[in-house]
């Protein structure tokens, strides 16, 4: 007789702790010391009083450390966790929350006109600054970069994004969880599935919903379809970054085939509207699944061929090595995620910590043989991950996909109750706030969604996408490089602006 195994967890766990401001920094330091990774911070007034939450990830467990603002201020953790820099600046701009110890607390979302109010001044005889954007020369999203250079050498880049800030998080407040999906999905076209799955996971965690295995498989298929077309797009973009037109066009053609497959399987080239809260509406019958597998096999063969050719294009390869290098130490300090982090040799991939998705237990993130952390390694990551994604899709589509009914909250699942700041005099509404957090591996790395529900409606939605996590690392990696190499470095990360700006 075999002993009964404990049931595998059905979703990522959330451990919430309410902490006094005086102990907040020590509690965060403890998280860092035990090896947890900072994965986001957000301000919220959903419970009636302004509070700050820092999220830490360790495996499939997310820890949320919450502290109330006292006199509009909480202790900054940016000295402990460099990755929290943007989160704190954003909370200051949008919620007026101060961070004691974050000096100077420069604006991030707000756009003061005078450069001295938001960027570092250029001092000295030789350095000068180059302002680029918000409108760029190609078909590129809008954002402004301020380069400090000496000659052609970059000393510092200050990205000023949020030109596309649409206030999506605040616009979603008051919506019911089902309606709120649209705000998360439309934050970004190229990460629509990852954002939707993260949002759905966060709401399901807050509501105590258990998702049907069929819906888990559907979401995993959608996530990998999204990764497929994005990675093909990124290889095409990197080829464009070095002016290698045959590679740009060949991978653009492969991407187009992937997007046509998306339309055939789900009715939409960007897979919009395919993720639903609690269940799944995706239906792929046996014949359609077989057709899709045939398309994927052809795509795999042609991708392998094109990739091999790219490896042998010496003029391309010679442009990639040593450009935009990120050290593993900087990647950790700045909170890089996804292929950008793996290109530095960091074994971080949220697909290994996603019990609510259908990834096989044997799944291991691919790492480049030489994790040099430069443009070459980031390109290599796409080449390594494409066959894995194609194989995963082939195995997931071995069976047809049926729609799954919306998950029911399982009897005995405790309603999530959040710990309270007993001694801080938090208003009674706090007890009715239900919180959920979910982390999902998007094509660009880990995307985190946090929700707070009050009386069944969204009181706070926070989406911290992989692009948001990676922007500081991108800016840092361009230091000491030549100014004309920045477009190539930028394309090797291929981060979105839309889901950063929201």
């Amino acid at each position, binding site marked *: 007789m075999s002993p009964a195994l404990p049931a595998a967890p059905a979703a990522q766990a959330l451990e919430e702790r309410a902490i006094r401001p005086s102990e907040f920094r020590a509690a965060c330091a403890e998280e860092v010391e035990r090896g947890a990774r900072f994965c986001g911070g957000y301000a919220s007034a959903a419970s009636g009083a302004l509070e700050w939450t820092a999220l830490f990830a360790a495996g499939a467990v997310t820890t949320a450390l919450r502290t109330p603002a006292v006199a509009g201020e909480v202790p900054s953790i940016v000295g402990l966790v460099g990755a929290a820099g943007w989160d704190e600046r954003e909370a200051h701009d949008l919620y007026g929350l101060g961070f004691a110890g974050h000096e100077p607390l420069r604006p991030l979302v707000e756009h003061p006109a005078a450069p001295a109010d938001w960027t570092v001044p250029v001092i000295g005889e030789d350095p000068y600054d180059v302002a680029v954007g918000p*409108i760029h020369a190609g078909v590129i999203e809008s954002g402004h970069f301020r380069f400090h250079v000496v000659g052609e050498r970059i000393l510092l880049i200050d990205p000023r994004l949020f030109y596309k800030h649409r206030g999506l998080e*605040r616009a979603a407040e008051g919506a019911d969880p089902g309606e709120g999906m649209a705000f998360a999905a439309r934050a970004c*076209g190229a990460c629509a599935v990852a954002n939707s799955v993260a949002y759905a996971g966060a709401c399901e965690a807050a509501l105590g919903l258990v998702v049907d295995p069929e819906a888990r498989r559907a979401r995993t298929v959608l996530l990998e379809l999204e990764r497929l077309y994005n990675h093909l797009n990124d290889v095409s973009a990197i080829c464009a970054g070095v002016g290698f037109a045959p590679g740009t066009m*060949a991978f653009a*053609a492969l*991407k187009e085939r992937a997007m046509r497959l998306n339309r055939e399987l789900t009715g939409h080239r960007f897979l919009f509207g395919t993720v639903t809260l609690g269940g799944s509406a995706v239906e792929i019958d046996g014949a359609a699944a077989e057709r899709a597998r045939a398309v994927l096999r052809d795509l795999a063969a042609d991708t392998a061929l094109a990739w091999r*050719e790219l490896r042998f294009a010496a003029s391309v390869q010679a442009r990639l090595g040593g450009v935009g290098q990120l050290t593993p130490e900087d990647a950790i300090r700045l909170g890089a995620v996804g292929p950008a982090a793996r290109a530095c040799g960091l074994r971080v991939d949220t697909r290994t910590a996603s019990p609510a998705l259908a990834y096989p237990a044997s799944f291991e993130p691919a790492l480049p043989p030489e994790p040099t952390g430069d443009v070459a390694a980031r390109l290599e990551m796409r080449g390594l991950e494409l066959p894995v994604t194609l194989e995963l899709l082939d195995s997931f589509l071995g069976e047809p996909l049926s729609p799954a009914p919306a998950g029911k909250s399982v009897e005995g699942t405790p309603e999530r109750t959040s710990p309270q700041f007993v001694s801080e005099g938090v208003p009674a509404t706090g007890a009715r706030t239900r919180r959920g957090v979910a982390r999902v591996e998007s094509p660009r790395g880990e995307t985190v969604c946090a929700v707070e529900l009050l009386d069944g409606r969204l009181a706070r939605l926070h989406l911290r996408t992989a692009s948001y996590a990676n922007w500081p690392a991108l800016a840092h990696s361009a230091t000491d490089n030549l100014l004309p190499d920045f477009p190539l470095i930028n394309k090797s990360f291929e981060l*979105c602006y839309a889901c950063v700006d929201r």
Partner: protein
Amino acid sequence: MFVLLRHLDRVRREIALPPRHGANSLAVRHVDAGSCNACEHELTATAGPHYDLQRFGIDIVASPRHADVLLVTGPVTTRMRDALLAAYAAMPEPRRVAALGDCALGCGVLALGSELAEPLEELLPVDVRIPGCPPTPEQIVAALAE
């Protein structure tokens, strides 16, 4: 590289795009005024081998000073308003404005009202409307080639 070129050649043969008609040309300058990036992906695709926008003499150019058409995506955020108007002001006349996608057309926009400027139709004289979320590359090519 020759394998890639042969691959592209095969793609072109399989798609068998019809040859272009007429002898007109058009220079298009794109401005993202707050889109979700899907319209940008599809606009980039129109220049790819499956659609080949250039066979109509249409080119996406780097500067508004070289452009006949200002192609706008997104619902026009407050922060992009001035940059958009500056790009339009830099264009030589005659000039046209095209709205690409539902957001630019003011349909079903998801956003906080205070973060948006006036709708594009109130800011600039829109001549071409390309609906869709996002419009497919076929629809973009058809609208621009018309």
